[in-house]
């Protein structure tokens, strides 16, 4: 019988990358200590564990750090028994890796750009990029799910976790901007998937309802200086 593993996860409340790791650890039924970092006052442990990027998530397993969320997800999958997160078939694994990379390299910068854009023109451009990327994910869902409920088939898998960790941010953007990144008429498969995913035990455990509220607050606070400046400019 395995001894108790020493697992510590360094994170941030609003990071979707941290959420994805928490989901994976929960799926494996593994217990861990969670530590919220303060980006303005990073802990010694964080700086020592991730000297290259100084970012979260960092998983520290028996004192050894693993960094980069996709690397951590695959590590957790390989190390701990229980449900497979990545597919076992090599071709399906390659497909899952492709879409996880797409979500990280193309979709994330686009939607995060919508959140952080300083000017209307920039935001409009990022909205376009986000909607284009999400259309690709709609096609991806059809291919990966094979008619089942999730990208991973009949249960939640790698791509579900990666894309699913973005959903509370999509909800926040919907509330603040009225923009539906996953729209029931344009991306019906993803819309249905998002509802199923949101209702799952895995999602509910890792993403309390309050996260979307916090994300809304973050967006409002982030945009406040630009909004104030614009107001000032228009009142002169």
């Amino acid at each position, binding site marked *: 019988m395995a001894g108790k593993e020493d697992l510590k996860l360094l994170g941030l409340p609003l990071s979707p990358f941290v959420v994805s790791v928490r989901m994976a650890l929960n799926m494996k039924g593994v217990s861990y200590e969670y530590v919220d970092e303060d980006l303005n006052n990073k802990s010694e442990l964080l700086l020592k564990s991730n000297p*290259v990027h100084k970012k979260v998530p960092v998983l520290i*397993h028996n004192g*050894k750090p*693993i*960094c*980069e969320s*996709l*690397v*951590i997800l*695959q*590590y957790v999958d*390989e*190390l701990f028994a229980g449900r497979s997160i990545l597919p076992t078939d*090599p*071709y399906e*694994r*390659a497909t899952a*890796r*492709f879409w996880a*990379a*797409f979500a990280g390299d193309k979709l994330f910068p686009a939607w995060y750009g919508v959140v952080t854009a300083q000017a209307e023109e920039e935001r409009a451009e990022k909205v376009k990029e986000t909607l284009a990327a999400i259309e*690709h994910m709609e*096609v991806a869902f059809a291919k990966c799910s094979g008619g089942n409920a999730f990208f991973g088939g009949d249960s939640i898998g790698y791509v579900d976790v990666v894309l699913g960790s973005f959903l509370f941010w999509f909800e926040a953007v919907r509330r603040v901007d009225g923009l539906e990144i996953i729209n029931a008429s344009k991306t019906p498969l993803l819309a249905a998937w998002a509802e199923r995913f949101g209702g799952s035990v895995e999602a509910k455990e890792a993403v309390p309802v309050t996260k979307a509220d916090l994300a809304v607050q973050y967006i409002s606070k982030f945009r406040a200086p630009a909004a104030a400046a614009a107001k000032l400019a228009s009142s002169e």
Partner: protein
Amino acid sequence: MARVGGELKLLGLWASPFVTRAKLALQIKGLSYEYVEEDLGNKSELLLSSNPVHKAVPVLIHNGKPVCESSVIVQYIDDAFAGSGPSLLPADPYQRAVACFWAAYLEDKMLTPWGRVFKVKTDEEKAEAMRQTIAAVDVLEDGLKECSGGQGPFFGGDSVGYVDILLGGMVSWVKASEPLSGSKLIDAEKTPLLAAWMERFCELDAAKAVLQDVDRVVEYAKLVMTKNAARASNNN
């Protein structure tokens, strides 16, 4: 374990370092394949249907099924042909996570700015992109130390592995850097381990079989930069 055979086809471009990665992996694993040189100005139907998302090379087609993105392809080759040739990724999950971390670092921190060198318009922007690239190479020296664990000259230790192949695919372009920009990307005085790595890598049979002629790469790069500059000034 049954030997996985089947038809392998690689869609590529002779100059592409990403395609070179795939060729290196296939060579090292002792796999035969059909190679198809694409014309990026006139992409084949096969390329467009195999990689509708990025419309880019390399694409590996195994028994009619396409795998896209060079790092995904290299991992796929390792997974699907596990019985053939050496393992490209370490057996130990933690070592594997370390390798994957440095593979991600290579892409995000070194290759992203390096790509900009060929695209940006002004000399200042080029210099800044080169500066960032060289800074990443400095950090990669530490990565080599960590991955090899003092077991040998390669990231994989005494044998070639995943990160060696990802960086190895870039070698002709690394060598082209000095004639093109005046700066050495891998400088024996600044990053001695990487310089030694490059020498040893080039001695491999697979490298000799696959790596592009540096002078040809220099000419090609000059052509690309001229085209990009012309396109930029036409847009003004």
